[in-house]
């Protein structure tokens, strides 16, 4: 389970010596904890959203305010005009408890991952694109290969391709921090300590709206992520993320 034998760039082809691990134990454990937390956060987030499926911009928003947009679903509160003749059950109590507990676990797991990323070289070796790949041509050929559903080459059994690297970097260093920030900005206690963190977003309702849109982007990422795993070989990729073993001979199957 050593990282040392990992191949440095996606451009390189075959590992120098036989490698048994595609993903380090830390990557695998943090991946699955994050998966569980994300699903819990998504489910409870939807439950909380159902109590007020309207979104606003600025500091305040309620049913007397013109919404930025509303989601055409029934609500779990009778006070919200939805056009539906019925009210869903209130699930906010446990949803809020679980949302924050899963958020804590996700944030702590994320911190562990990012710290180990920096110190183990995972960031440099596997996430930051190689200098040679930072060209328009490399990007367009990677995109073209994806659009043609070209099966990944054997070199991808050992590391991530260019588009994967860029996507993961955006998810880890843009979307996750943004969803944590906008989540905390909705807290009245946090707003009292860091008022600027709320005002630069445009207000607490703006924070809620951005929180929603970042969730949409993360769900899109999840769907594409699962689709790519299926295209690249579901069994191999799942085995790699569970046991660490890559299994190159059937790559692309």
């Amino acid at each position, binding site marked *: *389970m050593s990282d040392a034998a990992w191949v440095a760039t996606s451009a390189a082809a075959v590992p120098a010596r036989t490698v*048994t*691990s595609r993903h380090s134990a830390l990557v695998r454990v943090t991946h699955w904890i994050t998966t569980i937390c994300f699903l819990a956060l998504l489910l409870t987030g939807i439950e*909380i*959203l159902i*109590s*007020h499926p*309207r979104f606003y911009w600025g*500091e*305040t*928003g*309620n*049913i*007397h*305010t013109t919404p930025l947009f509303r989601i055409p679903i029934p609500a779990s*509160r*009778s*006070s919200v005009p939805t056009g539906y003749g019925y009210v869903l059950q209130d699930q*906010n*109590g*446990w949803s*809020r*408890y*679980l949302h*924050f*507990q*899963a*958020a*804590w*676990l996700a944030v702590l797991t994320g911190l562990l991952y990012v710290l180990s990323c920096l110190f183990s070289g995972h960031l440099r070796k596997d996430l930051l694109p190689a200098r040679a790949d930072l060209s328009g041509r490399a990007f367009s050929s990677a995109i073209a290969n994806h659009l043609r559903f070209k099966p990944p080459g054997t070199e991808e059994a050992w590391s991530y391709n260019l588009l994967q690297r860029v996507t993961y970097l955006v998810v880890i260093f843009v979307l996750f921090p943004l969803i944590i920030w906008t989540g*905390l900005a*909705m*807290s*009245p*206690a*946090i*707003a*009292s*300590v860091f*008022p600027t963190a*709320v005002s630069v977003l445009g207000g*607490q*309702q703006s924070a*809620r709206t951005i929180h929603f849109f970042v969730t949409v982007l993360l769900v899109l990422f999840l769907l594409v992520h699962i689709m790519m795993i299926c295209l690249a070989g579901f069994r191999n990729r799942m085995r790699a993320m569970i*046991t*660490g*073993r890559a299994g190159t001979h059937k790559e692309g199957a």
Partner: protein
Amino acid sequence: MKPLSRRKLITTGIATAAGASGLAVAGGLAKRYGLIPPDGGGPFGPGETLTYAAQRILTSHSMAREFSPSQISNPPFANEVGPLGGEFKHLQEGGFADWRLTVDGLVARPASFSIADLKSHPSRSQITHLACEEGWSYIAQWTGVPLSCVLDVVGILPQARYVVYFSMQKDWWDSVDMADALHPQTLVAYGMNGGELPVGHGGPLRLRVPRQLGYKNVKYVTRLTVTDNLKRFGEGLGSASPEGGYAWYAGI
């Protein structure tokens, strides 16, 4: 996969032991400094304790944001309240002249205040944000006597740790720790947007805790009890909220 080497086994063992004792020490410290919420048991206890402890440490000197008069929401919004009963109607017909706020528990001089008594104390007005856990919010100006001022009049005893507050609505009661009870922005509010506090917003008397969500701001407050132990109230979870599935601490 390689078999576990002895070194790896030892490092993992040491790390696990260090982690476990670290958690135990953190738990002990949290308990000692009152950083465990009354609903800190059960499956969501770890998350609640982390939130409460982290926010308590962060907010030790923080003030809720105050806004300009132009930012006041017009009209403000309030969730509907259930029927308030004959006693409330009777008091309402008398212009709430006979409304009483009793203060008891760990205090030197238990007392009972009318609305006029409360108005004779120094008042504070503040324009703050009220956000409901459901997601909606509004800004209004609240006027009232700081809870700390009421507590000064009755003289809280040194062992006081929480202030429990009860409503005319029998199933509504809640509590705050002393950090929130003594916070300058925590009001026993009787006025809103320059007028009396409307009944829909909890009039004649509502607790206003601007660093927590809407449901901590209990309406129709009739009694305050200062205590060192929340176990004695209801199911012992600190308020009616955890009994209905909601967190006691509502800073987020």
